[in-house]
């Protein structure tokens, strides 16, 4: 069974390719997939009828006890045969429905095949959650199929309406399924139905599950999405919205009925909504002029009928329901496909424009008439058998309560009369010659159908005809399901065409006569319907609800989002003060004793940091403010060193320097002073919040400093670092081994930030052209060698007044040493302070030096690579080294230590996490280079070339 589902999946994925290769003929190949499913399903008929079942169980997520459990019993087999059989025929039909040049056929083919697989999974699933997964998959595919290419507003609206409604029901159902699973103690459908348990939890769960079934099967008051879904191409309407998907709700009710029919609330809901839906659908089908919509409302009506039968919870009605389900799938898909043929041939589906079609398309008319006869309940078709069985069952029993049974019977008879009436309207509308129209309308058939196009409706129509007299053959299968429920009538009636003269026959006759009468006076009926038309409808209610939600959203957004960032931040901070702050004041363990400082130096540096921070508030000159903030950073580096964290001190020092450089690069374009934009009152409020937050955080710091009493998790880190990580610098080993996943995520963040910076400056490209010296300049100084008569290669491109000989000389002397030093930090970082971060920052500083001394051309000569390349390479190296651990039989990102003795070098110890650190190094260098390239070199170029707009011809940038 699982193999079948996978086959559908593979076919769905391959479908677009097949359609590209073979055009519409690919549908014929795809039809083989559901056909294989049909063959397999029917081959198991013997087992299932004999009382057995086919089961398959595969562990899915063992940690969560999720298994893919599939089970084929009588009910599942009936539905599976339906889904696969109709699916195969519909796919064959598609091979002629689509024209060779149609767009989006590949997409459609894939979605439809995948849908067939999900539907098959839905009826086979024996696990509540798996059932839900397939349930939602069918919803999603239905959405895609209704929406089509998404080019038409009506299709989009219909698709989203169907999605919203069925998903809302589906979510309710999920909650319900979980409640049922918890109440009954099992998530296996077969066990749940066998012993559902009891109690309010089960009742609530049942009602929620029914909500899912009701929305999916388009019961009142959610019926309106189904007619709207007729926007989809006809094969979709025939398959999803007649034979398969809308039956999911019927299937679920049928599946649960044996165990749940006696749960309080089940019968009123199912029977009430079922009968109401049957009447509303039939009533509205009577006034449609579009054949497809007529069928759609007819489907709504029939779904109500089916729901009533399978939900009643008695053996006799369940048997009738299953027979009727088969009959409905056969006749309704035939009719839909026939309407599709008519639409294809004539270009219209409006019954006011069609006349005399029956004589011109006799084969189609015959097939459609067979199906219509089955729908109306004429002998000897399967529809008649099902309807007879239903009437007989209700006449004799069917429901525990006689009054209810008779009321339901009356409703079903009335609904069947409506069915007969709209069936006549359909046949008349599609095929009859109408006096007021020319004998043939439209005059020309644009596309006479080919035999293959007619194959699917003819086969389906004939099946309905054959199964009527052959219905006793269905009895074992139907009984296999129905026998799970109690028999309420005196004796079990077998499925058969002729039961002798009995009340049900009279009722059938009554429905047919009533239908004929309604059809005869159809204009009168139409007049009445229009007279009774009221403004309100369920559809109207749906749109009004959506609009109300929209308005509420606008109201909430408009009230809370006032558009001021300081106001938002202030709100957040006040909440921080109110909630964690009050916990801190009232509940926190305050320290009992204090020390002034660790060392006097610490106090001195702390004072400097505080003074610098205070100055940052007062200074309005941009660069000075940046400098004093830099002072706090450097002060922090000292505090880190005093705390015993040399790696941090090193990194903080380097980062602070780089930050200053970046600030200067950006701020050189801005005015010298920051304008004060705040009134004194605003400043006071800010001050109050700031001081309060400062006090809060100081308190947090004090409490945190004193609260640490438990043994830290890192107590074994030093030992592990050496034994497993092969390094002496515990911090570095933590970064590249013990917590390497963290580091991988963090360097990935750096890549994102670097890309963001570049895209903010370059706008349309990842980076600009790397500024290189002209070819001849390079050739003149002799290929790739360093310049001999100048200090730097690219500085001559600078205007003389911007050059500095001292800086150039220093750069020439220091650059290579710094790069070597950065490599030293990288390689030694495993055992001494350093590592990929520090090494990369130092290398970045070397590049900064080249850029500051020689300008953008010098930067291009120093690093003639795309920063994106460095970033990507770094990520690749880090990631690959992580996978490398796997090769040595370890986990991802685990370090392997390779030790060997080489002739000259002596003992060499190589730890694989070094490669991870190299990745980090490359990423950091790439980040710095990206910053220099965009905020440095590109800004220079814009200024040099006065390229203020940076716009290509006929391109408009909103500035």
């Amino acid at each position, binding site marked *: 069974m699982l193999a079948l589902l996978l086959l559908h999946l593979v076919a769905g994925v391959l479908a677009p390719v097949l359609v590209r290769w073979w055009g519409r003929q690919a549908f014929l190949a795809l039809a083989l997939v559901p056909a294989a499913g049909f063959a397999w399903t029917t081959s198991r008929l013997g087992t299932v009828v004999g009382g057995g079942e086919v089961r398959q169980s595969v562990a899915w997520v063992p940690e969560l006890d999720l298994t893919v459990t599939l089970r084929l019993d009588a009910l599942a087999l009936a539905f599976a045969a339906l889904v696969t059989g109709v699916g195969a025929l519909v796919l064959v039909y598609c091979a002629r429905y689509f024209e060779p040049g149609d767009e989006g056929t590949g997409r459609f083919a894939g979605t439809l095949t995948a849908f067939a697989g999900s539907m098959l999974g839905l009826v086979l699933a024996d696990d509540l959650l798996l059932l839900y997964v397939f349930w939602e998959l069918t919803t999603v595919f239905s959405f895609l199929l209704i929406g089509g290419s998404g080019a038409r*507003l*009506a299709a989009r*609206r*219909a698709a989203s309406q169907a999605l919203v409604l069925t998903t809302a029901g589906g979510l309710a159902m999920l909650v319900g399924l979980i409640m049922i699973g918890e109440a009954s103690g099992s998530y296996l459908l077969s066990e749940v139905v066998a012993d559902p348990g009891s109690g309010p939890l089960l009742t609530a769960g049942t009602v929620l599950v029914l909500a899912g079934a009701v929305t999916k099967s388009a019961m009142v008051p959610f019926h309106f999405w189904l007619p*709207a*879904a007729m926007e989809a191409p006809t094969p979709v309407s025939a398959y999803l919205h007649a034979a398969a998907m809308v039956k999911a709700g019927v299937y679920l009710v049928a599946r649960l009925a044996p165990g749940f029919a006696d749960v309080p609330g089940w019968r009123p809901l199912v029977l009430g909504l079922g009968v109401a839906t049957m009447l509303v659908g039939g009533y509205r089908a009577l006034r449609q002029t*579009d054949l497809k919509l007529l069928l759609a409302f007819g489907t709504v009506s029939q779904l109500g009928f089916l729901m009533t039968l399978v939900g009643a919870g008695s053996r006799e009605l369940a048997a009738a329901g299953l027979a009727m389900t088969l009959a409905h799938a056969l006749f309704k898909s035939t009719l839909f496909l026939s309407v599709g043929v008519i639409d294809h041939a004539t*270009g219209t*589906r409006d019954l006011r424009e069609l*006349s005399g079609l029956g004589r011109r398309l006799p084969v189609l008319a015959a097939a459609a008439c067979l199906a219509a006869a089955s729908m109306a309940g004429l002998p000897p078709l399967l529809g008649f058998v099902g309807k007879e069985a239903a009437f007989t069952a209700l006449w004799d029993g069917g429901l525990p309560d006689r009054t209810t049974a008779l009321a339901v019977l009356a409703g079903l008879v009335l609904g069947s009369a409506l069915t007969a009436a709209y069936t006549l309207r359909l046949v008349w509308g599609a095929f009859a010659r109408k006096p*007021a129209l020319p004998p043939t309308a439209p005059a020309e058939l644009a596309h006479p159908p080919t035999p293959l196009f007619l194959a699917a409706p003819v086969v389906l129509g004939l099946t309905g005809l054959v199964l009527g007299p052959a219905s006793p053959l269905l009895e074992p299968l139907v009984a296999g399901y129905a026998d799970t429920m109690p028999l309420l009538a005196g004796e079990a009636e077998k499925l058969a065409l002729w039961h002798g003269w009995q009340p049900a026959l009279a009722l059938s006759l009554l429905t047919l006569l009533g239908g004929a009468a309604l059809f005869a006076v159809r*204009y009168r009926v*139409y007049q009445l319907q*229009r007279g009774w*038309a009221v403004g309100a*409808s369920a*559809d109207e209610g749906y749109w009004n609800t*959506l609009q109300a939600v929209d308005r509420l959203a606008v109201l909430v*957004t*408009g009230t809370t989002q006032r558009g*001021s960032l300081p106001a938002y931040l202030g709100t957040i901070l006040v909440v921080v003060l109110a909630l964690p702050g009050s916990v801190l004041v009232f509940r926190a363990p305050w320290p009992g004793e*204090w*020390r002034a400082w*660790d060392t006097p130096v610490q106090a001195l540096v*702390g004072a400097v940091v*505080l003074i610098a921070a*205070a100055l*940052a*508030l007062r200074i309005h000159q941009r660069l000075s403010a*940046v400098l004093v*903030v830099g002072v706090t950073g450097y002060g*922090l580096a000292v505090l880190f060193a005093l*705390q*015993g964290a040399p*790696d*941090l001190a090193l990194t903080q020092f380097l*980062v602070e320097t*780089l930050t200053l450089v970046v600030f200067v690069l950006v701020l050189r374009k*801005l005015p010298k002073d*920051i304008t004060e*934009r*705040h009134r004194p009152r605003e400043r006071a409020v800010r001050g109050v*919040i700031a001081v309060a937050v400062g*006090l809060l955080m100081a308190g947090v*710091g*004090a409490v*945190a400093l004193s609260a*640490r009493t438990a043994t*830290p998790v*890192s107590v074994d880190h030093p030992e592990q670092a050496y034994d497993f990580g092969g390094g*002496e*610098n515990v*911090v570095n080993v933590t970064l590249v081994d013990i917590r390497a996943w*963290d580091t991988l995520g*963090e360097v990935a963040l750096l890549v994102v*930030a670097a890309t963001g910076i570049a895209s*903010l*400056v370059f706008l349309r490209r990842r980076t600009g052209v790397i500024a290189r010296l002209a070819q001849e300049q390079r050739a003149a100084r002799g290929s790739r060698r360093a310049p001999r008569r100048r200090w730097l290669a690219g500085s001559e491109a600078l205007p003389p007044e911007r050059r500095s000989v001292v800086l150039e000389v220093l750069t020439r002397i220091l650059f290579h040493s710094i790069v070597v030093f950065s490599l030293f930090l990288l390689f030694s970082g495993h055992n001494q302070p350093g590592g990929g971060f520090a090494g990369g920052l130092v290398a970045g500083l070397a590049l900064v030096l080249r850029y500051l001394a020689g300008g953008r051309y010098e930067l291009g000569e120093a690093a003639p690579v795309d920063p994106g390349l460095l970033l990507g390479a770094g990520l690749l190296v880090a990631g690959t080294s992580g996978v490398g651990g796997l090769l040595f039989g370890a986990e991802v990102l685990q370090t392997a230590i390779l030790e060997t003795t080489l002739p000259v070098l002596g003992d060499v110890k190589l730890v694989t996490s070094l490669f991870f650190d190299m990745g980090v190094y490359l990423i*950091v260098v790439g980040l710095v280079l990206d910053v220099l390239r965009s905020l440095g070199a590109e800004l220079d170029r814009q200024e040099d070339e006065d390229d203020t707009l940076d716009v290509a011809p006929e391109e408009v940038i909103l*500035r």
Partner: protein
Amino acid sequence: MTPTVVLPLVIGGLYAAGVYLLLDRSLTRVVLGFLLMGNATNLLVLSAAGPAGGPPIIGVTEPEDMSDPLPQALVLTAIVITFGIASFLLAIIHRSWRLVRQEVVGVDEEDRRVARREGVHADELDPDDLAPEDRPAAHADSLHRTARAGDSTAEEALARRYAGIPSDDIDLPPTRGASR
């Protein structure tokens, strides 16, 4: 462990200054505030790790005298990330300056428009106001087409008589006919 007075004081001071700058409308000051708060947070995490100790390097310090290496590793990446984010913020300042010659966080006009309930969202359109071919199928009536000959004359007449009464008869666009 006995806390020092110096470290909480520095942390609180940096936070206070950072928050004050963060609430400014000038983007430059916002970035400076961001940096100060970043520094304060790093110091908080590191100091919460425990008392000062020796560098966590085997061979330099005995394991029992070492400062806790784990928070150091966390703070180390945080420092570098702060640099990346600060550079990104600076790039935003640059962009803002190039676009509008301003580097302030202005009032978001979009938010203001929403607050004033302006603008029409597509879903606020009543289906009745849409063009007939765009109406959802289950909505509106089918009788917007002009007179047509046929057996349906009575229906047409009725439609005229009851014009304006909403009906749920529908008119789907032909799925295949219209394209030809």
